[in-house]
């Protein structure tokens, strides 16, 4: 009687031991496969243009969170209104994980150009984090298209001029035509966001 059950018990124990090892392997597989990463790399859905982001900021899009991936000193010198700073060298620390791996916000990474923010995006995608995007052209493009848009040449089509007028407006908005404008803009934004969200949920 006893002997009869010894083997099944041993087998069950051994299978259990193997099962214990499996989650460990699964964890490493939770990373995005290289093929999938390459596929997404070749897409353009992760890019937000500077105009689009400026538009979202002016309209106070509540889902927008700008993340400056440059070093802290650079962030302190200058950063986009409302941006938070997660230097790329601290991207893998646990402190920032709740910001990078979440579903509530659309994070937009930016750096001086595109490639550093894009590397940050790849680091996040490999870990299968979603809702992270890249500001195309970075701060250099921000200056060229939002802060100091180039006036189109006179023989350009009228759409170009309309676009320029919009950019000019954005430039005044972000550059702060009068001294007080910027601080007035950045501070109240989050409060408005919170209220808005609550209202929506009440409706549900």
């Amino acid at each position, binding site marked *: 009687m006893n002997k009869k059950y010894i083997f099944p018990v041993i087998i069950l124990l051994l299978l259990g031991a193997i099962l214990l090892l499996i989650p460990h392997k699964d964890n490493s597989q939770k990373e995005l496969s290289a093929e999938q990463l390459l596929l997404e790399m070749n897409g353009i859905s992760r890019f937000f243009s500077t105009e689009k982001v400026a538009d979202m900021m002016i309209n106070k899009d509540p889902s927008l969170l700008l993340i400056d991936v440059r070093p802290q000193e650079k962030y302190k010198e200058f950063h986009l209104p409302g941006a938070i700073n997660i230097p790329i060298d601290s991207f893998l620390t646990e402190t920032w994980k709740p910001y990078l791996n979440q579903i509530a916000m659309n994070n937009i990474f930016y750096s001086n150009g595109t490639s550093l923010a894009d590397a940050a995006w790849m680091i996040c995608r490999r870990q299968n984090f979603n809702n992270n995007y890249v500001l195309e052209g970075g701060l250099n493009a921000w*200056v060229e298209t939002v*802060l100091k848009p180039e006036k189109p040449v006179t023989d350009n089509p009228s759409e170009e001029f309309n676009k320029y007028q919009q950019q000019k407006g954005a430039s005044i908005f972000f550059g702060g035509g009068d001294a007080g404008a910027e601080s007035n803009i950045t501070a109240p934004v989050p409060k408005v966001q919170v209220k808005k969200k609550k209202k929506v949920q009440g409706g549900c």
Partner: protein
Amino acid sequence: MRKQIHILSVFIICSSILIGCTSNKNDDLNYKISINESLGAILKDSSRVSPEKMADIIYNNNTQFRLIDIRNPNDYIKGHVPGAINIPGHDILNPQYKKYLNQDDVINILYCHSAMKATEAWFLLFQLGYKNNLYFHGGYHYIKENILDAYKVNSSMGYDEKEKYDYNAIMKSLGAKSSGTSSSISAPALNAPITKKKKAVQGGC
């Protein structure tokens, strides 16, 4: 005794199925370099070829290096750096190219239209453990205009992460307050929305 053999064989089959299910079939495309090491490599910035180095390699026809054009074949046919081979960026994981991208004979330098694409491709290959690859930040047009047609290499130009402007000076010229104050305003404001929002979302549902 027979029963024991039966049970043993069942056990062996079960365990082999379990192991077979968990191990990845395509071991070639597994990340060989840990994510921490990969990030470290990007930060060290030692795999980026400077414009001066690039010019030196092209002018001296240095056979120690091989240029790889990762644009699509159409662009490659229209014009490419002499001696460069074409491996389209969307196809770099194709097994047929592995012998070029992971070898010990020469050092590859990837270039594309733009800085970002070459960096990306290199970064993916690096994470997969491919050896002897470097990347160049300036795209093909940079090489053509500043190295092939005439020597106009300026180290700041071929690097897209270089600050092209003094952001603070521009903000001042536009009439904004000094950014010192603006940063102190925006920083605390932003801690609030995330946590509050998350809670709010959960409560609503």
